[in-house]
């Protein structure tokens, strides 16, 4: 099954879930549609579109040219970054995440270390001192 067809299946399942959920929304009175009308119409539209996409999935973008492993790793890194957001101090966490990102994308240790320290420091100054953000 091609990528666009998989997306179409996911969208179809999402549409069904929406239709089931909106079943319990209160109905509107005559002339004043209730809160379920628009989501229900959108659910039907999404279901129809997912069917059409299964029939004619079209083409997907060209396959990844580079960073095949670095991209999923960077995604996981971002998720870890947010999970640790309130646990580790912002500057330290950002520095470590940047260092890991630089190494993942092929920078040498020296450039990665200098870049991570400089950027993390600049960002901490910008957010905490400049904008008064509390992490």
């Amino acid at each position, binding site marked *: 099954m091609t990528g666009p067809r998989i997306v179409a299946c996911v969208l179809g399942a999402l549409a069904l879930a929406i239709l089931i959920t909106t079943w319990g929304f*209160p109905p509107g009175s005559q002339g004043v549609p209730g*809160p379920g009308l628009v989501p229900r119409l959108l659910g039907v539209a999404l279901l129809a579109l997912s069917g059409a996409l299964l029939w004619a999935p079209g083409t997907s*973008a060209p396959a990844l*040219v580079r960073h095949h492993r670095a991209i999923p790793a960077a995604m996981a890194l*971002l998720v870890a*970054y947010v999970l640790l*957001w309130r646990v580790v101090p912002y500057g330290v966490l*950002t520095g470590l995440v940047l260092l890991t*990102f*630089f190494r993942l994308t092929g920078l040498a240790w020296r450039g990665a270390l200098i870049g991570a320290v400089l950027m993390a420091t600049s960002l901490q100054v910008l957010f905490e001192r400049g904008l008064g953000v509390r992490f």
Partner: protein
Amino acid sequence: MPGDPMLLLAPMLSPDAWLYVLIGVALGVLFGSLPGFTATMGLAVLTPFTFWVAPDQAMAMLLGLLVSAIFSGGVPAILLNTPGTPASIAMTWDGHPLARQGRAGLALGLNAIGAFLGIFLSLVVLLLAALPLSRLALRFGPAEYFAVAVFGLSTIVGVSGGSMLKGLATGVIGLLLAVIGLDAITGYPRFTFGQPELLDGVSFIPVMVGLFGIAEVFTQMASPPRQQLDGDTQTSGMLPTREEARTLWAHGLRGSLMGIWIGIMPAAGADVGAILAWDQSRRFSKTPEKFGKGSLEGLIAATTGANAGIGGSLVTTLALGIPGDSAAAVLIGALLMHGLQPGPLLFRNRPDLVATIVALVFMASLVTLVWGLIGARILGKILKIRDQYLWATVLAVALGGSYALNQSTGDVWTAVTAGIFGFLLRQQGFPMGPLVLALILGPMAESNLRRALALSEGSLATFVTRPISLLFLVLAALTLLWPLISRRGNDSRLPDSTIPDSDTL
């Protein structure tokens, strides 16, 4: 009225306004010059930071960024044959051949002059349109607003790139995201799953940051490495001779008018304006055989066409609240964040804001002109910055900015989720422009549909018996049916180039 000279002059006499324009222009140069780093991405990443400044200062930065990014996109187009933004695709056709002929300086100079000329003329049109638009505002009720929103949503067909079905699907996803939260009319919670963070709905800014900042970085990482600048590229001699200038002004004027017209039409962005301006210029040229081989006429037409679209697009964006492209959608998001609702009433209730926007775009184009003429060497150096540093900067600033907005990790999760899903969907050919368009126009469409039905006691006739509403619904129908009516296909006479992706202006 927005055309009041005093209203227009006020920002120009403010040192603060110049400072914020300069900041925006500097950022725009960075985002526009680097292939893959787009004006939309820059706007999305910068928007959360404008929360800390007044609305006019925010607009100064954002408009400065937009104007200089569209201009700067022409720099790699000329020097590397790689458009910095899709709007500068047509500039590669004559700009790069000129650079290869040793006239890179002149090509860069024409790019700067053409950008200024195009924007200036488009602002004149915006000011001329202000008076009739403010009069029209009085005749807008819920039915008209609903029809305008439907017209805006119909332009999803135009911003869907290659696949209309996929564009419609992402549009529906955007509409569904827009209904999350408390229903504006009954107060009923929809799709909140008991999470109090979702009662206010999905935050628009983090979604935008994810789709156009984070997803774009992943897309860049997956793409082939960009070309590097040749060390001995000659960038002196930036102004045309008097003889050359004499033949160029008509092409600049024609390109500007084409760009303005295309910019006014929703969903037809600066990329389309530049391509059509170039094509029209070739038809009227005495030397059409030179087009595509280093024609100064072709370059000035493409440059003015791309940049004049900015003012043209502002007409639709400000007057109707319909984003003409992804960059305009982000601008609308920024206005909404500051409590300003673009639409017919803006021209009537806030002529000072419209005048400020016009003045700021003019100031930005002036700064960009000066920068373009004296900073070409630095522009070339920007192209040598390593990708990894740029990607990391965008990711860190995007996530920090998303958090800083409400100091909520929920917004950071939204940005990361939008970034990852945005990238995965784009890899499967699903455009993101429709999603943002729908996210902005969805609430406007739904609330006005229900208000109009309540006022008419459930009669759908209200939408077709009111002339303005009917007009916009007919326009929406035509927009939706246009791809079926017109099956002209691509113009095979245009030089080969990447088909522009309307996601990334």
